């Protein structure tokens, strides 16, 4: 017994080291990949606040870029509005649609990205809207030039989302010209490209074809422009094409995003 105590005393620094390393390893294995619930502290109040303060300071330097991109976006929205008005001018004032849901199935919540990563295998970002603004888990997040991610965990004031640059993100996307669709995933270290898989061989694909969201899910509405075909190939003997898609949105510079609340999803999911 005495010897044991002596041993413990003598090697106590080493034992402490081993103990703490085991704790760290358990943390790594348990919380890093999928169930990052307890440790996911970006959405916790303290680090969220600090990031928000730092973000405010940082944004002063980038006001011009942000203003430019907002102006571009406004221009595009105006164009759409005019198109829409032309479509609807055929309706008379008395001919009201049955339900507002038919015309407005989506509610859009605007948010700012306050923390973002692109260089890890699984990337996340944090937005400054949470459950009190109506954010719920599983909502899609779109950005001015494409798609950004899916809300994964909602706090009261902040929510954290998996980025499209995440190994678990699978987005149903289609080729605009001929409607072939497949899952869009992210494989490589380069945040500018994603891979569109399982497009059958008979599809006629050209470089620079437009890739849009397919709308075959309750996350993203149909027709959001994601990017263009950069190159495509088929693995030897496979009946499917693999397409490398160049993303339109620069994920590393996400600033303002829009969370899509698909009102019709609720009753269907329940």
């Amino acid at each position: 017994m005495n010897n044991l105590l002596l041993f413990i005393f003598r090697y106590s620094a080493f034992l402490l080291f081993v103990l703490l390393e085991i704790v760290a390893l358990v943390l790594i294995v348990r919380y890093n990949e999928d169930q990052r619930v307890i440790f996911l502290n970006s959405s916790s109040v303290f680090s969220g606040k600090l990031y928000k303060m730092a973000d405010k300071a940082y944004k002063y330097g980038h006001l011009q870029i942000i203003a430019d991109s907002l102006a571009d976006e406004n221009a595009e929205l105006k164009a759409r509005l005019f198109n829409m008005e032309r479509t609807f001018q055929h309706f008379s004032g008395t001919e009201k649609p049955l339900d507002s849901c038919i015309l407005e199935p989506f509610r859009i919540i605007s948010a700012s990205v306050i923390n973002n990563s692109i260089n890890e295998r699984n990337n996340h970002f944090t937005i400054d809207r949470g459950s009190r603004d109506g954010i719920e888990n599983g909502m899609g997040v779109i950005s001015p030039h494409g798609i950004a991610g899916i809300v994964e965990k909602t706090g009261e004031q902040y929510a954290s989302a998996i980025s499209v640059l995440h190994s678990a993100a699978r987005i149903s996307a289609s080729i605009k010209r001929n409607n072939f669709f497949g899952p869009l995933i992210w494989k490589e270290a380069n945040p500018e490209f994603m891979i569109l898989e399982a497009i059958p061989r008979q599809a006629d694909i050209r470089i620079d074809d437009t890739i849009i969201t397919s709308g075959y899910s309750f996350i993203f509405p149909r027709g959001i422009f994601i990017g263009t075909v950069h190159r495509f190939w088929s693995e030897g003997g496979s009946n499917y094409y693999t397409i490398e898609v160049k993303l339109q949105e620069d994920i590393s510079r996400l600033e303002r995003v829009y969370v899509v609340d698909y009102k019709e999803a609720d009753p269907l999911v329940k």
Partner: protein
Amino acid sequence: MNRETIKHIIRGFLFLIFQVLILKRVSSGNQWLWHYADIFAYPIIILLLPIRMTRHYVIIIGFGLGLMIDMFYDMAGIHAFALTAMAYARGIILSYMEPRGGYQLTMSPTRHSMGINWLLVYTSICLIVHVFLYFTAEIFTFVYVGKILLKTLLTFVLSMMAILGYHLLFNPRK
């Protein structure tokens, strides 16, 4: 709590804030370099602890500091894993590099006190342990050993520049 302790704590917090607010933002840019590299300046907090400090305290501080960094990097345990190992390795490295006659009471691990050569060897060995273990734990498989080594090398060079920059610019006594 004497004045030295308080000075160490304040300096530690400044490094922590510098790391998570500035270096983290710099190293998550979109240039090709940042796909393979990071800058870690926070190990200097452990490196600057007094030489004669009890090993247990160094290890515990390393673990706690690692967890705090993890919190800001949205990870769990990776920084803590690497930094705890570095804190333990620091004790061994210090005992190997002990000058003849042992460490004096007034000595501290800085350029001012130990000279640039001693500082270079001490900092680089500790840092390489930390960076290598960090990327090993992050990638978590030895299949990508080439990637681990490349990331270790680039990150080591950049972090070393940051840490030595501090020593050269401010030349801290303690």
